[in-house]
């Protein structure tokens, strides 16, 4: 497919943006100024100032002399570049690749985009009109190369479109400045009497190189399409991305669902062909008013099942605010992994795993991934450290679960202090009281001594006792530390069934 590029030039960008913010300045001559080489120079001028002959580059004092009522504001180039970048990001609704052309242009790679708006002419008109509605003066042009599009936008007819392969004939009538040359090269050209590109475009390369250096040949080659030119997109294009522009802005949840289904089917088709699956998915809705709404999902294993992914997204669709309508949907998969191949086993264990993984994704979508735990044994005796959380469904224990020591079925996350009555030191307690209630103990066994793991944490050992009260309830109590080193503290730590 031949590449097509659009160059959008905003000649009055800086002053337009100020007039948008301060409507009272509209219609009055306005210039921005900055000091250069010890003089204050006009760096940008709006239309009414230009009508009076005040153009950028003029010394501010001269401009004031021409027009005493001139409005002068300080220039802020950083802010203008920021604005340009945000405009380029806004342009992503027209094409997936947009880049900034410093200081006042935007370049779009529109290959394969224009037909969605009914051809290049209406596409161009649509974009120019949208900018005009936003209060920006723009000139735009479409061509096969960035160079020609730039030349046409800056020096050609308004809204020029160069048909495919017509670069040289379009360029011939334009001045040499349309080739984005250095001022010194331009000055030399003027001296030699070149006022149109057509006068030297046919000259042998060696002659041009000798007179004007490699830069001219590079620029000429870029404009004609012989030399490659890389764009630097404002938002890097993701390898897994699907776009769906809408002719009419979408405002209803069912419309969003239909768009999502379409996008998911396309993306999942592609993923399944490549044997990959989505781990993170983002659905973005570009609103008419410039806002971008997005919802995000995560899966616990790579999936390319459109129904499953749709269900995950569906939980959050109501959080999208369409407001006046969404004109473009983009589905991205920033994290993609090898999908587990469906194994044709006699017993469909794999299939069951996938079903459970999908169930967990659904649950995680509602209550959060942090709510789901699966535990594996750890070789620690200290009860709080004897389990670790597994990260995936396929993880299996590396060591066996210990069975030699009895552990309580319920373990309090924090041991609760109790007061006990003990006949002799190192004997199990006779009774204990917890939260104002006293329990008389009938049976007891222990102690099971568990030492603190000093290489992990300093602290006192625990002597655990398994006890049963008169009514048959069974508890796990421990004493922290030895007798003889002050009064040891007792705790209730768990319940046995």
């Amino acid at each position, binding site marked *: 497919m031949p590449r097509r590029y659009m160059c959008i030039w905003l000649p009055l960008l800086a002053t337009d943006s100020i007039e948008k913010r301060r409507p009272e300045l509209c219609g009055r001559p306005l210039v921005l100024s900055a000091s250069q080489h010890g003089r204050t120079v006009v760096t940008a001028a709006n239309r009414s100032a230009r009508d009076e002959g005040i153009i950028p580059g003029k010394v501010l004092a001269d401009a004031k002399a021409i027009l005493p009522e001139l409005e002068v504001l300080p220039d802020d180039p950083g802010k203008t570049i920021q604005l340009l970048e945000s405009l380029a990001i806004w342009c992503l609704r027209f094409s997936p690749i947009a880049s900034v052309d410093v200081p006042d242009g935007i370049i779009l790679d529109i290959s394969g985009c224009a037909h969605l708006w009914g051809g290049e002419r209406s596409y161009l008109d649509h974009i120019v009109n949208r900018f005009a509605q936003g209060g920006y003066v723009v000139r735009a042009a479409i061509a096969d190369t960035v160079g020609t599009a730039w030349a046409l936008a800056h020096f050609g007819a308004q809204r020029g479109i160069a048909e495919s392969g017509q670069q040289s004939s379009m360029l011939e009538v334009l001045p040499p400045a349309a080739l984005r040359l250095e001022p010194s090269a331009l000055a030399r050209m003027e001296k030699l009497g070149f006022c149109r590109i057509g006068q030297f475009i046919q000259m042998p390369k060696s002659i041009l190189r000798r007179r004007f250096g490699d830069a001219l040949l590079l620029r000429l080659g870029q404009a004609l399409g012989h030399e490659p030119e890389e764009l630097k997109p404002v938002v890097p294009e993701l390898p897994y991305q699907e776009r769906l522009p809408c002719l009419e802005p979408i405002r209803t949840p069912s419309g969003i669902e239909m768009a999502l289904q379409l996008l998911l089917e396309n993306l999942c088709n592609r993923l399944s062909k490549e044997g990959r699956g989505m781990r993170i998915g983002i659905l973005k809705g570009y609103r008419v008013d410039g806002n971008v709404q997005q919802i995000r999902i995560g899966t616990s294993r790579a999936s390319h099942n459109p129904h499953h992914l749709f269900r995950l997204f569906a939980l959050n669709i109501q959080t999208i605010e369409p407001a006046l309508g969404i004109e473009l949907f983009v589905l991205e998969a920033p994290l993609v992994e090898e999908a587990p191949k469906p194994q044709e086993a006699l017993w469909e264990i794999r299939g*069951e795993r996938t079903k*459970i993984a999908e169930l967990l994704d659904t*649950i995680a979508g509602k*209550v959060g991934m942090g709510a789901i735990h699966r535990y594996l044994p750890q070789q620690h005796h200290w009860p709080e450290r004897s389990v670790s959380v597994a990260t995936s469904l396929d993880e299996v224990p590396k060591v066996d679960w210990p069975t030699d020591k009895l552990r309580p*079925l319920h373990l309090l996350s924090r041991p609760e202090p109790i007061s006990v009555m003990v006949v002799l030191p190192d004997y199990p307690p006779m009774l204990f009281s917890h939260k104002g209630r006293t329990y008389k103990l009938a049976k007891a066994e222990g102690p099971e001594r568990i030492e603190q793991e000093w290489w992990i944490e300093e602290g006192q050992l625990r002597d655990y006792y398994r006890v049963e009260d008169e009514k048959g309830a069974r508890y796990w109590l421990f004493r922290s530390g030895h007798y003889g080193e002050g009064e040891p503290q007792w705790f209730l730590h768990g319940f046995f069934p």
Partner: protein
Amino acid sequence: MEGVKKEIIQNLREKIMLMEGFKGNIMEVDRSSFGLEEMAPAFPRGIFPTGTVHEFISPTAACATASNGFISGLLSGMVKNGMFCLWVSTGRSLFPPALKAFGLDPHQVIFIDVSFDKDVLWVMEQGLKCDALVAVVAELGEVSFAESQRLQLAVEKSRVTGFLHRRRPRRRQALACAARWRVKPVASKVPDGMPGVGHPVWEVELEKIRNGKPGKWRMGWRGGAFVFLPRVQDIPATPKKEHYA
């Protein structure tokens, strides 16, 4: 004549059971795998009903532990290698390594810890709809009749077994569950003159069961299986209000 009558009655019973949601014998587990032979007369068709929702009520923390012990014992009969069950709860204190003592591999249990009862119910319903799971255990406080009906509808399609464990419920209302159990711990037995605490012993009461007969048993868990102790009727009951931690 007698035989014909019996057969007709048997057929009618089967029909009624089908209508009440006891579908087919496809998923039914061999009754010996639960070790509940002594309870068999209480169950419909003499088999512990799987593929339905069982309700457990625990007024105290000690009872909740005993109920979870009983549920773990039941789960160990159902969960085969490589299969999973879901354990959904609010404020969970269950300690996974202890499940091993009940014959259940703790890594085959997926724990979902949420903050609200309504989230527990939502997760449980999703889990019960997923036929790749063996069982779903939910620990929560309050549940309404309508919510329990939703759960029952979900299991009738998927044949997953649900255990709805209500801890310290404030209200006592009937639910659309197939069975209601109460488990409380009783004093363990050790041979005379021996020190220590014995194996877990519980008083298991089946308060309600669809198409079965309620009953009360004294039973425990020893050596990886349920063991039954002498019937409750033989032991003098102590009707006294109980308090536990």
